[in-house]
């Protein structure tokens, strides 16, 4: 599934300018401690977090993420948006909890191991 398709399907809105929406979503990851995300997030994932600090862009680039989703109706800092547009990393907004969205994404097959 591409980022654009995921947005339409789950009602996510983009905070960034529209770059990177053709990236392929290959999995998901949740967390707010950036040191832990830097170590463990899988490539191609969408990352669900409440952190809006500009360092999330560097972490997303480092881990080759498809997109970052700010949950709980949080908004990214202005500098974060500027850097995300520069790097072509989409930052999306989800008004509810990460748990809620993660469950829906997983159910739809994102990051779910293929049935045997």
């Amino acid at each position: 599934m591409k980022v654009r398709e995921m947005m339409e399907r789950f009602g996510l809105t983009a905070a960034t300018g529209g770059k990177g929406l053709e990236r392929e979503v290959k999995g998901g990851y949740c967390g707010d401690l950036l040191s832990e995300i830097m170590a463990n997030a899988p490539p191609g994932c969408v990352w669900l977090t409440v952190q809006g600090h500009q360092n999330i862009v560097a972490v997303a680039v480092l881990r080759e993420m498809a997109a970052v989703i700010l949950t709980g109706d949080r908004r990214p800092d202005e500098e974060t948006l500027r850097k995300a547009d520069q790097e072509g990393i989409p930052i999306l907004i989800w008004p509810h909890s990460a748990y809620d969205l993660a469950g829906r994404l997983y159910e739809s097959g994102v990051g779910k191991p293929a049935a045997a």
Partner: protein
Amino acid sequence: MAGDEHSALREFKADLHIHTCLSPCGDWEMSPRDVVRRSRAAGLDLIAVCDHNTSENAGAAMREGRRAGVAVLPGMEVCSREEVHILALFDALDQALAMQAFVYAGLPGENQPELFGYQVVANEDNEVLGENPRLLIGATTHSLEEIVHCTHALGGLSISCHVDRPANGIINQLGFIPPDLGLDGVEVSYRIPLAQARERCPMIGTLPCVTSSDAHFLKDIGRAATVLRMAAPTLCEIGRALRAEMGRGVMV
């Protein structure tokens, strides 16, 4: 002349991060008076009183400092919205109180003493003046950048707290230290010898580095301190020592 500047330099044993009974997690015995007396007994020349998101006990500690012969600076350990702890250090109480007004404007919630601890405001004669009702243990709505900017605008120094620690350390919360943040320095906890800080925590890079007790109990005062070579126990001199200007510096 430079020679005069150098000859006037001496070493000050400094602990720039000590709590009082105003911090919810600070022990009841950490009255401003007794924090200062204990600091003197521990051989400290200079301390900064840094409670969580407040400076309301700093004035009492400064007055006791003048009586006891310890230089006391007013400060605060501010919690940013990224849940990073950062020290704001000042020379004068009015600067710290201006910082406190900025912090209070972005500090939601009320304390629940039975859950988080009592927040006692006391004077230099060990009399309780009241309790602070705010949720001092909480995070502010201010970003790290806004906090550093406000600290500097008020003439203060910004030092990122216990960067070696998982809980509320900048490296753990944000993965790395934002290079353009404009920090005046970083603090490592008492768990790491200052001489090993850069090796144990490579992300500190070339930022000036100090260590502090971060004491919440009287017995912890003195468990870590930083020796600063400088002309006087003032904020301006601390800044110069951190920048290693004119023969000043952090002794490691």
